[in-house]
């Protein structure tokens, strides 16, 4: 662990325990003994269960990026048109005429393997919230999917569930799903990848951020009620699968796209006023990470009255309220006196609205329940001492060239038929016909081309070009070149429709980073993305890391999925269909 400047020295003695916590309970929370010692040092006492739960999610791989941070920092993230790079809910770029494109890609791999429909659906819901939280109206969704071998008995069930879930959510919220990619490979048999991307459009001068401001300002909860959904999902997302993961099943969340649609409309309606100071969606680790991050970014403290959290079930505990991953919820800081205005908007849309706390100048998170303090944590030390690892890594050895003998034996028509017929190469029409790719009436190029093209309502001469790309077997053979290739392919797909590529979001899906070979793949992929981004002036503005994608010790092929966004002048855009008999066909490139 690389010590942050003011990390307290690690006490050597056996740390104290309280509230029934034992070393086993600590381990169940995904914290190492060293991390537990740091918790005790920060608090100056043993944490209670609520506090332990909070540390466990804040320091999980999923929330803290502890294994990947060091390498993500090396990615190029700036350009004159970048308004917001990584670090907020989504990245933001300038697309001219006072408009901004807001986008991000995020994984929902583990939940989708356990319950494909709900896992994929809530993945779409989560990424949509990341985008409209920033004040953008979502205008397009994409999805990058990797399944196991078509022959594997589970594959059919997983494909149909995931596709139905993505469609079920996206179709209902009324955001067109315009593109994506699908691969099949036995390396994903026990661990599929479901990466969802949302692109939104906002006025560039009316973006919303998550840093809390204004001591005494009300902290407001909106959306759905809180139930016992997905408690410990964030730590699950950071743990390897094993035979006993069946036992973790009750953590599955159920998505409610109808409520999400209302939440989009209500948030955008309130964002048109001056009521909101800061806003953050409750994603993985729900109330804990949202309140914590908002306070931490604003350098403030926060007091929450957990009795006021709208609850769906009876007898919920503070631990459950803080860790629940119930979907379709947001946390906002309002301007003082704006409560009534905000309440009226959310009540009109029939959503929950509750003032659950206030901002303070103490730099602490204080949680109250039935009149007593049930948690009291210093925010900055907790955030700063968030572990950061420089994990050992090995460069990926070059594989021996494949045996090419016999390659000539296949006659070209057979080779062509095989290429067209293989699951990766075959048309994905049967998938995207289950997605509403037309709603909102701006889809100029539908799925099936190189990149989707979606017209800008407020700049009708122009459109966004959108694509997702990655070829895991290239990355497996050579992480540096394979990841660079993924960036280059996204860039090519955008230019192929006539767009100027502007920026990308990435979704880094890898195995267990504690293994030097896997860490080497990750490091190599970061290097490759960096090289390609610099060469193409194509910065990374947002992204997501999903590690521990392993089943019984077997890692997935490394998959740094790239989501590219470009701007195209509609009059100059091109599509791939051959247009007329007699036209000349050119082959360009090296």
């Amino acid at each position, binding site marked *: 662990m690389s010590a942050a400047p003011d990390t307290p020295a690690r006490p050597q003695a056996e740390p104290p325990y309280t509230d029934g916590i034992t070393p086993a309970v600590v381990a169940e929370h995904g914290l190492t003994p060293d991390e537990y010692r740091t918790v005790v040092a920060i608090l100056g006492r043993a944490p209670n269960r609520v506090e332990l739960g909070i540390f466990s999610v804040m320091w999980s791989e999923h929330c803290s990026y502890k294994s990947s941070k060091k390498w993500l920092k090396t990615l190029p993230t700036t350009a004159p048109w970048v308004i917001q790079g990584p670090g907020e809910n989504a990245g933001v770029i300038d697309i001219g005429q006072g408009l901004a494109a807001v986008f991000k890609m995020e994984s929902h791999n583990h939940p989708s393997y356990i319950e494909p429909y*709900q896992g994929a659906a809530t993945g779409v819901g989560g990424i949509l919230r990341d985008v409209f939280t920033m004040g953008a109206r979502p205008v397009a969704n994409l999805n990058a999917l990797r399944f196991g071998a078509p022959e594997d008995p589970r594959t059919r069930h997983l494909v149909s569930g995931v596709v139905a879930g993505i469609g079920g959510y996206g179709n209902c919220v009324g955001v067109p799903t315009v593109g994506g990619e699908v691969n099949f490979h036995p390396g994903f048999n026990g661990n599929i990848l479901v990466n969802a991307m949302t692109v939104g459009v906002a006025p560039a001068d009316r973006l919303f951020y998550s840093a809390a401001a204004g001591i005494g300002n009300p902290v407001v909860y909106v959306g759905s009620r809180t*139930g016992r959904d997905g408690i410990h999902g964030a730590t699950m997302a950071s743990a390897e699968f094993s035979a006993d993961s069946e036992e973790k099943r009750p953590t599955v969340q159920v998505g409610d796209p109808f409520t999400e649609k209302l939440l989009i409309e209500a948030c955008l309606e309130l964002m048109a006023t001056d009521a909101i100071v800061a806003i953050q969606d409750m994603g993985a680790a729900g109330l804990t990470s949202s309140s914590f991050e908002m306070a931490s970014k604003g350098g403030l403290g926060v007091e929450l009255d957990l009795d006021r959290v709208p609850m769906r079930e009876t007898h919920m505990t503070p631990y459950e309220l803080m860790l629940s991953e119930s*979907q379709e919820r947001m946390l906002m800081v309002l301007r003082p006196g704006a409560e009534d205005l905000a309440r009226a908007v959310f009540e009109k849309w029939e959503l929950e609205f509750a003032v659950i706390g206030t901002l303070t100048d103490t730099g602490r998170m204080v949680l109250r329940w039935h009149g007593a303090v049930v948690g009291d944590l210093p925010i900055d030390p907790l955030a700063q001492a968030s572990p950061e690892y420089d994990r050992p890594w090995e460069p990926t050895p070059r594989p021996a060239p494949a045996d090419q003998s016999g390659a000539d034996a296949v006659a070209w028509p057979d080779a062509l038929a095989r290429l067209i017929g293989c699951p990766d190469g075959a048309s994905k029409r049967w998938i995207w016909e289950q997605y509403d790719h037309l709603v909102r009436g701006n889809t100029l190029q539908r799925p099936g081309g190189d990149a989707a093209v979606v017209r800008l309502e407020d700049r009708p001469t122009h459109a966004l070009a959108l694509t997702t790309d990655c070829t895991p077997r290239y990355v497996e053979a050579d992480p540096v070149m394979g990841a660079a290739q993924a960036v280059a392919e996204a860039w090519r797909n955008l230019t192929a429709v006539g767009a100027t590529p502007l920026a990308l979001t990435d979704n880094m899906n890898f195995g267990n980073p504690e293994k030097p070979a896997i860490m080497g793949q990750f490091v190599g992929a970061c290097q490759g993305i960096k090289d390609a981004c610099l060469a193409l002036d194509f910065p990374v503005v947002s992204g997501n890391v999903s590690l521990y994608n392993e089943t019984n010790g077997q890692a997935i092929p490394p998959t740094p999925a790239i989501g590219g966004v470009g701007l195209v002048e509609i009059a100059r855009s091109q599509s791939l269909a051959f247009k007329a008999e007699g036209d000349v066909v050119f082959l360009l490139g090296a």
Partner: protein
Amino acid sequence: MKAKVHITLKPGVHDPQGRAIGGALSHLGFTGITGVRQGKVIEIDLDETDRKRALEAVDGMCKALLANPVIETYAIELS
């Protein structure tokens, strides 16, 4: 023989449909409703005449397809 499979969401699993129905009922002026949950019933006509074998067969169907064990429970009724 006829089997009825009752499929219900496990307690605690979020039921957005039930909630929306409850909301609509109260908009329509119905009061005193404290909770609404929606479930499914699947009726299966079987050739089988032996209760025990029928039960086994239907239980197999529930496990293989009809119920989603992650979020649902089921009960079988024969007649």
